[in-house]
């Protein structure tokens, strides 16, 4: 078997790439001149070896279509073959056709990597790709004035290698590679991610001995800093290894065929979980969100709730959760301007924000030039723009550095720990207590019960050993999908359908955020969106929840509209209006001209829980251990189908007011691609319609707590993590309370 391309194959690939990304009439470089061909052929004998057969087949198919040698064919012939290839046209019968994507999808992605990756990976030679579009690469940070609209950013492109590692940062948390179990803990937590870290912090602060079982390895939380390629493509080999071996399948409705879901973000399954990759938008729910059903019925009547919706109130009020929101914000170091009603016209925050007793720990991220343009347009349309609160420092906090606005933020570990992760917030303090032990490489396969009570977790070590770690309380905190899967795969006599599932509720009420963004290109200004974190966003909440009158609109609830930063070139070069093809001078010219002039208005619509949508075990697909993967059944309902286009219309109005020259939108249904995967182990008072109580305690399984996005009852138009963390801290307090009570009883008996 060959391990790389032959010279003839390379020539065909180069000819192909140079038709997809041709040299310009102005002398601008082609794909091969930028180094994309060299990048791909090197990658095929390295990290992308698995794709070599596809390339070999593809090249043969192109050569065949060109009558023997694609590279020697005239360019118009090459272009017509390319058009068929891009369309995955059946007339190219030798074309490889993978089941989940087209061959063009894959090579287009690799080509874009070769054009715009950090030169340390072999592409973008001599920064030619970055220079073409004016992307400065890895910078130690940006000054405020550089974020002004049309400010010319005069910085020579830099590789992250020339920044090096700042020696003033702390090292990875101390963990132990799992082998034999430890003595029974007060609490054993499955999953060392965001929830696991926060619960361990709260529990150890109250004297509890905690063991975390984490499937992945230890890490600093600064992984992939400032390197777009390694944070996206190569992450398949790194942070998301476990997840990528068990990606859920997706179908629209029962009976439809399920295919591997394309999770655009991937999920990190190493220490810290998605607290490392997250975008750090840290927003509370609104006060009424906790009484969503009763408030909606009171205002619009029972019939306003779609027939298929299982919309319900939460088993707690905002007031119950508020102290835990305060605590979570303080641990994270959230920056923001407090909002609330604008009686005195003084608030810079979100006017609809739930009442808060304390200001944010520090002031909001600055407003970018784009954010200001958005705010001005939104205000003139009668909206109330505000900066999103973010778990990103704007001033020093507990040894962490304030944000440098480097912009390699969502999907990246932060190079200065300005963005909160479990590693730079809760884990060091919890470890310092001496009460926490973290076992890494401990992949839990089952929750173990005795007489129907959870007593521990069975885990597999990297050398294939299986052990049980016991704990007086078992906490499941492995993200919505794995929370559901582990419950369904853990069975005993008292729970023949899985733990928590005696009323067939596990997996029901799954909700996932759709991302029906509106894009806009300006022809009179530069936006410099390659500066600033994603979370440095200006938003409006006027169209969220019930913040506006829905009479006559034909739907309930709404969504958030926001202008986000962070626009990195590998990803950005895949964002095209419907009338621009993915190849040729048209693509290249569009991207070069509009890379620094494209805005995305991100819409976070509220997704109602529906009887159609649930998670269960896929009857066919299994992971590497032969265990079924999660199957997602998800579609948007009539409410979303009416609401989303209406929100897109409003966003377009704002974009037009801002002066956009060209506007287009994504479809209303984008599928399970966000990381707002919620529901599945719904909280509630009634065991017939929920899996846990409001403290995450599983109704039918004593000794077991489940916490995560899976706990959600509804999915307001707000990012989930801050609420997940507040629920975690509250759940930790309930565990402490239960154990105090149990110990008290023991003493009474004794």
């Amino acid at each position, binding site marked *: 078997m060959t391990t790389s391309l032959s010279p003839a194959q390379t020539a065909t690939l180069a000819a192909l790439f140079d038709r997809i990304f041709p040299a310009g009439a102005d002398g601008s470089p082609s794909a091969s001149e930028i180094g994309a061909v060299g990048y791909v052929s090197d990658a095929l004998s390295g990290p992308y070896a698995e794709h070599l057969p596809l390339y070999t087949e593809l090249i043969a198919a192109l050569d065949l279509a060109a009558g023997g040698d694609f590279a020697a064919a005239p360019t118009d012939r090459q272009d017509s073959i390319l058009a068929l290839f891009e369309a995955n046209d059946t007339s190219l019968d030798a074309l490889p056709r993978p089941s989940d994507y087209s061959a063009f999808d894959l090579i287009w992605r690799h080509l874009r990597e070769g054009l715009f990756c950090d030169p340390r990976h072999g592409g973008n030679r001599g920064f030619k790709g970055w220079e073409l579009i004016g992307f400065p690469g890895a910078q*130690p*940070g940006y*000054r405020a004035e550089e974020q002004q609209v049309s400010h010319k950013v005069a910085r020579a492109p830099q590789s992250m290698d020339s920044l090096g590692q700042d*020696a003033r940062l702390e090292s990875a948390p101390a963990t132990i590679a799992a082998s034999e179990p430890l003595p029974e803990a007060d609490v054993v937590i499955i999953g060392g991610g965001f929830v696991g870290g926060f619960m361990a912090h709260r529990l150890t602060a109250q004297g509890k001995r905690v063991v975390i079982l984490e499937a992945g390895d230890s890490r600093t939380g600064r992984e992939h800093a400032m390197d777009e390629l390694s944070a996206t493509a190569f992450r398949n080999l790194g942070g998301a290894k476990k997840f990528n071996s068990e990606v859920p399948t997706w179908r629209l409705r029962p009976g439809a065929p399920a295919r591997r879901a394309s999770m655009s973000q991937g999920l990190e399954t190493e220490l810290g979980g998605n607290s490392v990759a997250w975008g750090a938008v840290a927003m509370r729910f609104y006060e009424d969100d906790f009484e969503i059903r009763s408030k909606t019925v009171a205002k619009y009547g029972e019939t306003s709730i779609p027939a298929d919706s299982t919309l319900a109130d939460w088993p707690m009020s905002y007031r119950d959760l508020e102290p835990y929101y305060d605590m979570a914000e303080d641990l994270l170091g959230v920056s923001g301007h407090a909002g609330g009603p604008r009686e005195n016209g003084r608030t810079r925050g979100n006017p609809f924000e739930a009442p808060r007793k304390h200001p944010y720990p520090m002031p909001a991220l600055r407003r970018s030039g784009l954010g200001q343009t958005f705010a001005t347009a939104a205000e003139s349309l009668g909206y109330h723009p505000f900066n999103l609160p973010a778990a990103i420092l704007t*001033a*020093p906090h507990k040894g962490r550095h*304030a944000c440098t606005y480097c912009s390699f933020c969502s999907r990246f570990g932060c190079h200065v720990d300005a963005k909160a992760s479990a590693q730079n917030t809760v884990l060091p303090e919890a470890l310092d207590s001496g009460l926490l032990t973290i076992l890494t490489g401990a992949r839990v396969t089952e929750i173990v019960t005795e007489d129907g009570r959870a007593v521990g977790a069975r885990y597999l070590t990297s050398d294939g050993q299986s052990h049980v770690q016991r704990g007086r309380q078992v906490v499941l905190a492995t993200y919505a999908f794995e929370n559901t899967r582990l419950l369904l795969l853990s069975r005993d006599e008292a729970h023949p359908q899985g733990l928590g599932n005696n009323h067939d509720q596990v997996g029901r009420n799954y909700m996932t955020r759709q991302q029906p963004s509106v894009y806009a290109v300006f022809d009179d200004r530069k936006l410099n969106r390659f500066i600033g974190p994603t979370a440095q966003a200006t938003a409006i909440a006027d169209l969220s929840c019930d913040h506006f009158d829905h009479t006559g609109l034909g739907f309930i609830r709404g969504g958030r509209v926001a202008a986000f930063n962070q626009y990195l070139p590998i990803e950005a070069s895949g964002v095209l209006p419907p009338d621009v093809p993915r190849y040729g001078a048209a693509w290249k010219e569009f991207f070069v001209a509009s890379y620094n002039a494209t805005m995305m208005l991100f819409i976070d619509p509220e997704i109602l829980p529906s009887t159609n949508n649930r998670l269960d075990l896929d009857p066919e697909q299994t992971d590497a251990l032969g265990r079924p993967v999660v199957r997602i059944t998800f579609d948007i309902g009539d409410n979303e189908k009416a609401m989303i286009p209406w929100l897109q219309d409003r966003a377009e109005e704002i974009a037009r007011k801002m002066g956009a020259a060209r506007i287009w939108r994504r479809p209303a249904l984008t599928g399970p691609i966000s990381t707002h995967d919620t529901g599945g182990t719904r909280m509630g008072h009634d065991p017939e319609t929920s899996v846990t109580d409001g403290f995450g305690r599983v109704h039918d399984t004593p000794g077991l707590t489940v916490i995560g996005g899976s706990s959600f009852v509804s999915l307001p138009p707000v990012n989930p993590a801050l609420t997940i963390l507040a629920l975690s801290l509250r759940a930790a307090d309930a565990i402490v309370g239960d154990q105090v009570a149990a110990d008290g009883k023991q003493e009474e008996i004794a």
Partner: protein
Amino acid sequence: MSTVDCIVMGAGVIGGFTAWNLARTGARVALVDPRGAAGAPSASWASAGGLRAQGRNAHEQPLSRIAADLWPGLQDALSADLELSQGGHLHLAETEAEVPAIENRLAADAAGGIATERVDAAQIRDIAPEVTGSALLGAFSPGDGQAHPGRTAQALARACAELGVACHFGAPASLLMEHGKVTGALAGGHALRAPQTVLATGAWTAELVAPLGLALPMRARGLQMLLSDLALPDILAPTVTAVGRNLSLKQLRSGAFMIGGRWFARPTGRGLQTLPLDAHAAAQWAGAAAILPRLSRHKLVHQWAGTEAQSIDGLPFIGRAADGLYLACGFSNHGFQISPAVGALVAEDILTGTAALLAPFTPERAARIAPDEIAAFRDAPILATA
């Protein structure tokens, strides 16, 4: 059990340069550090990285001159970017009363062969245009500059490993004592033996030598540093200090301003870890803004503190302290600049016993200091009072 020619405890810049120089002669060396190279909260982790030969004690001047010759070649020798730059060091007098201090420094530097120049107000404006117009007179040493201490220590550890030095990082370590003498070190429960063990363990030296009954006239103090948000690079080339202020100020390659001085940080009770004191940070920043007015428009983005070993007379302890035990500690807030020279001389002294330049730093001088003086030195308050 393993035996080497020399064990170096501590992988900060002092231990790093010592181990590297020993290894370059072909000696078999082990480098031991529970935190690895420049780990928090060591001095090399926190250090401001100023390379200042000007204004030093006469005994240190020869070391400073050797070091000043070595620094420009170190990036090549270590194949590493050390963020080295030579923008000079500028020491300012802002009042007439402070002028004699500058004159004295100029005379002392001239006597010690350090190239420090007298600069008047107009020359100061040329060297550092944005520095306060109220500066009357300055001492300027153009050969001085800055480098990144953490990167230096890490580059040394890498270079040592390449030369075959056995690096024992990440595990607790202590001295190994047998038959009443130091015979090596215990690193992660593993016994390492050597005829000589060098303690380059900074502020941790006291706890390591306590079992030997040795008490050095040193104290551990956290020093705090501040960092501003980014300005355009190349606004301030030299490191600036001032006679009448507790301050050192420089601009980094990124454009950020870094503010140091001798501002003590608050002990946390967790080992030698300290945290910046807000009251000190405010005064520290205000002092810097008085020298560089634009700082009043900048923001604080980071602050940290690291622990330095300060000796009672401000000079390090370098030399044999017991059978098999060699000390190199107590660098008293200015050990970074001389560290390449210290490493070279300590290596020479260990291998040949001939480094006469180190004689003034002998640990034996400790015996001449009165105990109540030492107690007062150790107990001096952390908090600066107005």
